[in-house]
């Protein structure tokens, strides 16, 4: 009788222990095979909680003014604050628990968060290298200049990029319309559905036809390729027939008559620069764009969208002439046009634009310093000086007079870029002081009309603030 009982107990024992082993295998499956899926699941708050436990580093302007900082709330969780709000939004980006990070918050997330994402694979060992606080990043941005640029654009759509031509340091970068990174979680729906795209950083991601601002590059190309010298006289009859069925015209059908290269740039003569482009031809035009780095991508924190260059080998004469005056299918970013201006301000050399100059620890000690670096050598110092003098003439006697500043010689070029989206985009690129340039910039105001009327006065305000 007892043996029967014992047999039953043994059977049940084996069955239940077997079930426990099955459960053991199942738990192992969850913790090993499903681990990545569960740990990385969007509803799993652990990585956000982990980030909220350490103080995210500050983003500071060149003078140490915080543009973004974290402060613990009463519960000990860190919140992100943006004292400049929309003014520095596109530079700084946002750090949202719901929508991730953008801008520098994203590009330097590793430094700012102290590389604090615990690698669950390493288990407790990873706690050895988990920092208590992130590092600060110090920008090249001048908060006061950034503010001036922001307010100078007013309520119009557009972008401004201000560079130090000698180092490539970005002193200000504004894109409008903006957004408030501090309230991005609440504003998400409005911001993402707005037709004018507030999240788009137009300074580096907006693609525009450069219009007449590109003529400074064509002037240099004509001189460099010895197609023209400063004395050659051009004749403008108000229009230029190219091939059987295309006619290049001045914007107001006004004939400029006889003029030299400097005068042609000052009045922004389409006929002269169209003719020069045709004389340069496809391959030399393509080479010029390469020389100025338009086809070389910018690596690093600026997250630039590459320029759209035409396929020169397949370009018809009409489009070739159009490209020479910054139209046709050519599309560039405002940053690239600021770099073009900087080339003539810096003896023909374009420095690599950068936003972050230093990484510092919590106590302020410097962990890493970013040295200025050459991006590309665009033209010779002599030619750069010649084009610079022409750009001075543009501001002193030409279309760019509105950028004129008393006491400081400004050099520049206006642009009025036709586009399929309405009125022309208003451009100004330039630098100052002309003999010893400290700032170079590009200003674009979308669909605002003539460059000399809208963009040039904005540039003037920025020069005034920057050279104060």
């Amino acid at each position, binding site marked *: 009788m007892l043996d029967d009982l014992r047999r039953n107990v043994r059977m049940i*024992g084996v069955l239940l222990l077997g079930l*426990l082993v099955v459960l053991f295998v199942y*738990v192992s499956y969850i*913790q090993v095979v499903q681990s990545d899926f569960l*740990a990385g699941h969007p509803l*799993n708050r*652990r990585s956000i909680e982990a980030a909220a436990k350490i103080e995210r580093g500050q983003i500071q302007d060149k003078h140490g003014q915080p543009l973004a900082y974290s402060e613990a709330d009463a519960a000990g969780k860190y919140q992100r604050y943006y004292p400049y709000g929309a003014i520095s939004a596109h530079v700084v980006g946002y750090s949202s628990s719901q929508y991730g990070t953008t801008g520098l918050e994203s590009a330097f997330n590793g430094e700012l968060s102290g590389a604090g994402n615990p690698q669950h694979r390493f288990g407790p060992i990873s706690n050895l290298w988990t920092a208590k606080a992130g590092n600060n990043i110090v920008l090249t941005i001048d908060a006061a200049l950034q503010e001036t640029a922001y307010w100078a654009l007013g309520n119009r759509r557009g972008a401004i990029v201000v560079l130090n031509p000698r180092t490539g340091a970005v002193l200000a970068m504004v894109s409008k319309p903006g957004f408030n990174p501090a309230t991005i979680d609440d504003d998400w729906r409005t911001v993402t559905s707005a037709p004018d795209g507030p999240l788009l950083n137009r300074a580096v991601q907006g693609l525009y036809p450069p219009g007449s601002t590109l003529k400074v590059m064509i002037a240099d190309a004509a001189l460099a390729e010895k197609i023209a010298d400063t004395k050659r006289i051009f004749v403008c009859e108000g229009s230029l027939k190219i091939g059987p069925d295309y006619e290049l015209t001045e914007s107001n059908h006004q004939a400029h008559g006889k003029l030299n290269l400097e005068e042609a740039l000052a009045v922004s003569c389409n006929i002269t620069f169209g003719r020069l482009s045709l004389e340069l031809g496809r391959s030399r035009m393509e080479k010029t764009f390469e020389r100025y780095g338009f086809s070389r991508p910018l690596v690093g924190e600026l997250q630039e969208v590459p320029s759209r260059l035409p396929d020169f080998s397949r370009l018809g004469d009409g489009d070739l002439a159009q490209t020479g005056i910054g139209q046709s299918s050519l599309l560039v970013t405002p940053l690239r046009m600021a770099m073009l201006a900087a080339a003539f301000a810096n003896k023909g050399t374009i420095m690599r634009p950068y936003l972050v100059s230093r990484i510092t620890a919590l106590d302020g000690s410097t962990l890493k310093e970013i040295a200025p670096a050459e991006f590309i050598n665009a033209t010779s110092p002599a030619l750069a000086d010649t084009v610079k003098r022409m750009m001075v003439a543009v501001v002193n006697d030409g279309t760019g007079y509105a950028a004129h500043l008393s006491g400081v010689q400004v050099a520049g070029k206006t642009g009025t870029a036709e586009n399929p989206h309405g009125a022309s985009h208003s451009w100004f690129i330039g630098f100052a002081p002309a003999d010893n340039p400290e700032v170079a910039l590009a200003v674009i105001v979308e669909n605002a009309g003539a460059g000399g009327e809208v963009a040039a006065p904005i540039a003037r305000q920025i020069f005034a603030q920057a050279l104060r």
Partner: protein
Amino acid sequence: MDTIQQERGLLLIAALVLWSGLLAVDLAHGKINVNTLLIATGLILSWFVIQFAIRKIGHTGDPLFLPLTMVLVAVGLIMVYRLKPDLFLLQAVWAAAGLAVFILSAYFFRRLPFWADYKYIWGVIGVALLLATAIFGTEIGGHKSWLILGPVRFQPAEFAKLFIVFFLAGYLDERRSLLTFATKSYGPLVLPHPRFLAPLLAVWGLAMVMLVLQRDLGSALFYFGTALIMTYLASGRKSFIVWGGALFIVGMVAAYYIFPHVRVRFDIWLTPWADPNGKAYQIVQSLFALGSGGVLGSGLTYGFPDIIPEVHTDFIFAAIGEEMGLMGSGAVMLLYIFLIYRAFRVSLQATTSFDMLLAGGFAVLLALQILVIIGGVTKFLPLTGVTLPFVSYGGSSMVTTFCLLGILFAISEAGSTDA
């Protein structure tokens, strides 16, 4: 004796686990709390004293029970200290009380047949406790399993399970020969004798009441399963399990269609990702904790188990899985598997049928409880409000399980002398 020294060595390992775990939590917080270590040392001393005393009186019970249990208690204390430091002292006190209950039951239940005579009284008490909870129960922390009598609040279901196993062992032992052969034919149907069916139907009814009134699918499964399996142990008739299982499934299906809250429980289990932030929040958070822990875990205090509601009681297993990884959760499961294996071994080596049934019943009870709670928090089974024995925070569970262990310990002595 050699085994006694080995037992002492294993207890020392349990002590080291407790000390190092508490120190790890303290060091992660940057300050060592002397009180905590004193409390832990006190408890450790008490388990060595208990071991010394029980061996001094010549008790030859299973030498693995105490060490296995103490490691589980240590893991539980570490997690309670990490999750709810305020409750640490109380949990240590409960563990000490449990040890006292252990030595008392290990001593007194050496005279088991005497206790078996009162089986009906135990049965009535058990059922009364369960019904009282179902009817007068107060909801604390999401479970309607508390009785509040003046200043005392406890979970009677924890105690009830001991009484019910006791009753079943006595009842089934007495009618064993009857059950094995007695069947009644109703035309083509061959049904067990009503005498056998009666207690089974009673427990089934009880389980259904728990399911409906307390929304506690796991508890229902685990009471009914224990009763059913014990009946099988006594009778050896698999048809009873088939019948019982069918009865239970019919009851559950009926409850699913009749009671919306039962349906919700099932739906959470079957499709947790349909409402991960609502009804299925707890189980989904538990799965996140286990998955984030991975193999090695986040390290004590470096995880976020606090996101899970009720983490220090029912969901403590998920917290262990998150902060200690599969290394911790797997170790805990292996400890239980060893313990349950030893409990079945006690039953197999018992010398009387009553001892065998009682030990077998307790082993089944323990195994089902582990299956139901660990299965519940890992979505293996529907979620339920059962504690993880020796590990979860709570006095009722701690004291009852120690009592159960003491009885098994007492029975194991009879087996060991015989062998």
